[in-house]
């Protein structure tokens, strides 16, 4: 009965001429509706609200179920707010190409400082997550102290550029979304180098026996082993060109002992003023996909046919 009254009042008032009167009519209808609502009708409306809440609960349950299924597929615990790999991500090939890079910071030191190194590194990209690295370079040192006039030189057994060194290790991409172009890396390196040290300086004078002799040590061979903990990032600049920096905590593991000196400089490691120290690199990287496994034409066609079968109405 109430609904019939409301519709009658509404139609009557809606036929008024101006907008203000229509709004007034709507308000009047609302008050009439409120005033005429009986207790039973109120119960009816409560039942309707409860029904709508139940529908929402069912939707939430189904959403939870979907999340649980996603957890089961990935094998890890995830939260809806965090990154969830897409199906396309999961299908990526294991080998994603490789990166060739060089360190600009130490290259600058090599040319404009008393010591430094030039290096080139080759980094394989496995699933955009693991990056086995090989770094090959040469390091040199020719340092003369201002006060003592002692000159320390690092030579190579057979190279004029400097003493060679080799580092091997692996980096791990810390980002949750592994498939973006930028990378946040943490890794380890093991380095080995063989080099020769030379020391020159002013003559030494024995204060007691009053004798004088030259300070000259030539080509003492040494081999050093060291380790590095690497933390850094790499961002895309343009196309396949990336740039990034790394901070490296370096630890000297072992150096061949000799009576003349502990080497002042170890190629690839740096100066040995302390047993361990922090170093840094600023890298330019060329992210190359050469060697990345691509799907064959047959496989692409098969995938397309399968997609069409699964979603026949979808327009692509």
């Amino acid at each position, binding site marked *: 009965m109430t609904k019939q009254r409301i519709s009658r009042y509404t139609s009557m008032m809606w036929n008024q001429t101006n907008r203000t009167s229509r709004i007034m009519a709507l308000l009047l209808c609302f008050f009439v509706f409120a005033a005429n609502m009986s207790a039973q009708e109120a119960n009816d409306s409560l039942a309707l609200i409860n029904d709508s809440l139940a529908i929402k609960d069912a939707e939430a349950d189904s959403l939870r179920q979907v999340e649980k299924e996603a957890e089961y597929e990935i094998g890890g615990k995830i939260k809806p707010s965090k990154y969830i790999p897409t199906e396309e991500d999961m299908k990526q090939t294991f080998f994603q190409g490789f990166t060739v890079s060089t360190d600009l910071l130490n290259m600058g030191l090599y040319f404009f400082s008393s010591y430094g190194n030039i290096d080139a590194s080759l980094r394989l990209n496995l699933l955009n997550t693991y990056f086995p690295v090989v770094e090959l370079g040469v390091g040199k040192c020719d340092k003369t102290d201002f006060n003592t006039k002692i000159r320390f030189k690092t030579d190579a057994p057979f190279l004029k550029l400097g003493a060679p060194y080799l580092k091997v290790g692996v980096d791990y991409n810390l980002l949750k979304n592994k498939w973006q172009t930028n990378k946040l890396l943490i890794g380890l390196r093991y380095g080995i180098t063989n080099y020769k040290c030379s*020391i020159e300086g002013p003559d030494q004078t024995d204060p007691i*026996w009053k004798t004088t002799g030259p300070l000259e040590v030539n080509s003492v061979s040494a081999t050093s082993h060291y380790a590095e903990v690497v933390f850094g990032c790499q961002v895309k600049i343009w196309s396949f060109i990336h740039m990034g920096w790394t901070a490296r905590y370096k630890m000297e593991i072992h150096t061949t002992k000799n*009576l003349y*000196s*502990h080497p002042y400089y170890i190629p690839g490691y740096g100066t040995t*003023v*302390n047993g361990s120290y922090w170093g840094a690199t600023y890298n330019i990287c060329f992210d190359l996909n050469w060697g990345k496994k691509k799907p064959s034409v047959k496989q692409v066609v098969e995938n397309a046919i399968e997609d069409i079968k699964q979603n026949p109405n979808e327009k692509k």
Partner: protein
Amino acid sequence: MASCYSNNCPVDNMVTCNYYFYNSEGTSISYAPAITVSAILPGGRNVYVYRKIGEETVTADKRMQELIDFGYSETIRYQRNDTILINKASGKQYLEVPMSYFNPADTLLFTYSNISNPDTVYVEHDNFSHVDLPECGSFSYHYIKSIRATDNAIDHIEIVNPTVNYDKAENIKIYFYDVESDE
């Protein structure tokens, strides 16, 4: 002495050969009598000694003809150059004795306050220039090849650690006669 401005340079950077004292039984001791250690330096000089009964003995570096004319007798003695490295150290358990930078061997004279005759210790060693860091200057390290000594107070002597540097490690053991241990 080389200058040093780095915090990483060794503070105690005096390279010494460390002689530790033991009795004949091999127990560590503090040697009570005063010991003077002298190093015999290369080269020497003639010393002229003039004596006359009833007169004081005169020692000179050059010949004095007028003393001979006054009836003095002349004795010419060749005296080797030496220098005192440690003067009258007593009650010591060990001595830190420097080594020569460039000589292949050092001859040391151990003179005791309780024994008239000194002991001569002869140390053969190799020498190495050593640089820790360029800013810390250079040092002379040594490697002891052999050692021998006379036996006036010394029972025997042996090398423990042949590498001589500024680590203050025990390099040589000296075993003395007739010395009781401190315990």
